[in-house]
């Protein structure tokens, strides 16, 4: 099972290492991890996606709660949240595949954000599944570099 943990922590040095160290020491998985400041500069938000059996997923939350730098934890299943991932891909192009790449980008709602003589950079901001799909679609093209943020997620708005 997969679970998303949105963890509000004190924005202090060493906190990331304490949280990631907890996962390492207790052999919890980190499928993805994204960290950034919140609207309050004293508080950072860590979005952690993890997987495991129910007992493990419960332990993750409880053990995180024991860390004194952790302020609050929200957990949700994938379908209860809006998840996004930002990915930048640098690819090589030539005359023969340029059009195909651009069409793929269009279909995937990805943007070409930089272009050079032989290379272009594609940006996509979408669900983790869709960003993975784009990588798949670009398999025929030579990917030079790729960077992604890891999943960011917030629970869906109340109706």
């Amino acid at each position, binding site marked *: 099972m997969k679970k998303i943990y949105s963890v509000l922590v004190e924005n202090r040095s060493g906190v990331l290492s304490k949280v990631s*160290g907890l996962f390492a020491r207790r052999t919890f998985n980190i499928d993805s991890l994204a960290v950034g400041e919140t609207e309050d500069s004293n508080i950072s938000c860590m979005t952690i996606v993890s997987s495991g059996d129910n*007992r493990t997923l419960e332990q993750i939350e*409880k053990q995180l*709660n024991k860390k*004194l730098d952790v302020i609050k934890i929200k957990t949700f299943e994938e379908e209860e949240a809006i998840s996004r991932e930002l990915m930048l891909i640098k690819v090589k192009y030539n005359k023969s595949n340029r059009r195909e790449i651009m069409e793929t980008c269009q279909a995937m709602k990805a943007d070409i954000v930089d272009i050079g003589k032989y290379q272009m950079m594609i940006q996509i901001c979408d669900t983790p599944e869709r960003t993975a799909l784009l990588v798949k679609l670009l398999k025929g093209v030579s990917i030079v570099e790729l960077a992604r943020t890891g999943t960011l997620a917030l629970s869906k708005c109340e109706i």
Partner: protein
Amino acid sequence: MIGADAIAKCLIKEGVDTIFGYSGVAIDPFWNSVGKENIRTILVRTEQNAGHAASGYARTLGKTGVCAVTSGPGATNLLTGIATAYADSIPLVCITGQVNTDQIGSDVFQEVDVTGAAESFVKYSYLIRDVKDIPRIIHEAFFVASTGRKGPVLIDIPCDVQLQRISDFDYPDDEPKMRTYKPTIKGNAVQIKKVIKVLEYAKKPLIIAGGGVFLSNAKKDLRKFVEKHQIPVVSTMMGIGVLPTDHPMYYGMVGNNGNSYANRAMRECDTLLMVGARVADRAVAAPDMTFDGKVLVHMDVDPAEIGKNVGPTIPIVGDIKHIFADFMDAEFKDRHETWVNMLDLYRDSMKEEHHSSPDFVNFQAFVKKLCTAMKDDAVYVADVGQNQLISCRNIIMKDRNKFFTSGGMGTMGYSIPAAMGVKAAERKTQVIAVCGDGAFQMSMMELATIKQFDLPVKIVVMRNEYLGLVREHQSREYDGEYNMVYLGSDPDLSKLSEAYGIRYIKAENMKDIDEKISDFLSDDSAVIFEVLTDPEENVI
């Protein structure tokens, strides 16, 4: 006033009267300032034992123990002491000196990232970078160490911060405000009602009491409840002493090293109350199987322990003392007389008779005799190994006796420094450290501390020339091929005792054993009692 003066003042405000530790350049400003205050300082002979001594002190008085050491190797030597306290939830504040702030991270002499190294076995740690933070941090550290699930808190203080001037020193009086730390103290009322209902209909209820009962100072409360409703109690190793051994409702220690009648009670009960116990692997080997089909009520102050190893039917997060206060208010009829009669039968019929070679001391019988002869309020500190298991299985606790050991970590060499800590806390209390020849040699440097600081601990060395419990394991698992377990017959303990100016007694067999035990306990002096046991004897 400089930072170090401020720390010393803070410690006085926290009621600290004794600090165990070791010096070094990076912590010297601290010792200099502490020296000006009315605080007793005890120089141990290796930093690890500062942690253990502080642990013994904390467990005796039920308050936070304090130790302080220097940076680098001093700090790393202390790590085992910190981890040992963490495993048994003992409240400590551990202070380490650190290199100057501008040198941190540059691998200078005696620098080590101790907060990083200790991260997974401290309750919390601080690296003080600003002298102004000293009062707040020390106030928080004592609060965190001694509340909720207790444990060690580490404060790393760079030497230059200790020396910096602090203009206005103001120590907060009220409880620290920490938005990330609010331990649950009171048990949920709905859950408590559920438990009462379950108990009312239980035919075979059983309480497993662990170290949490002592940590929350709930021994009396538990006893009152148990006597009111006649609910049988077994204990974990950390829970030994929750009831006197001869209490009609006490049925021994559970676990793979426990009493067989206690384990039988655990297997056959229908309703189980885990009280301040964490379903540790040595107490309950296969929790899912053992608790299958039973109503399991798990009470612990640490929510993460509930459901970690087994899913309970009714979880209650809270302080045991508070929970039992709520239980006492509830009236219910109990209907489990036949169960109690059955357990009595088990306890009487499953008495473990132990036969050992007449050429040596029968240590099982020795422990019983020792316990019978010791004072009613004596503290018995067992080390780790065969001596620990034999102690646990044969110990006789009276109401005011205390039993300490390193349960979670199983740290060899705990007993002597921890016993020193007990003595430092209560000079008049009789304190007996029981260890094997392996653990003794890990901690015998402290004989000098015992002498120098007048901490007269009674030491029993169960001597069989082996690391007995591991030898025993190898005899079963490796067809008796022994590796790395033979210690030999040195040192000569009579000469060693003489060198340290400590009285010495020896028993080679059971002849005159009663007289020797009474001689051992007769005065208030430190004594080393060497007890020879059969090297080939197995305890499991």
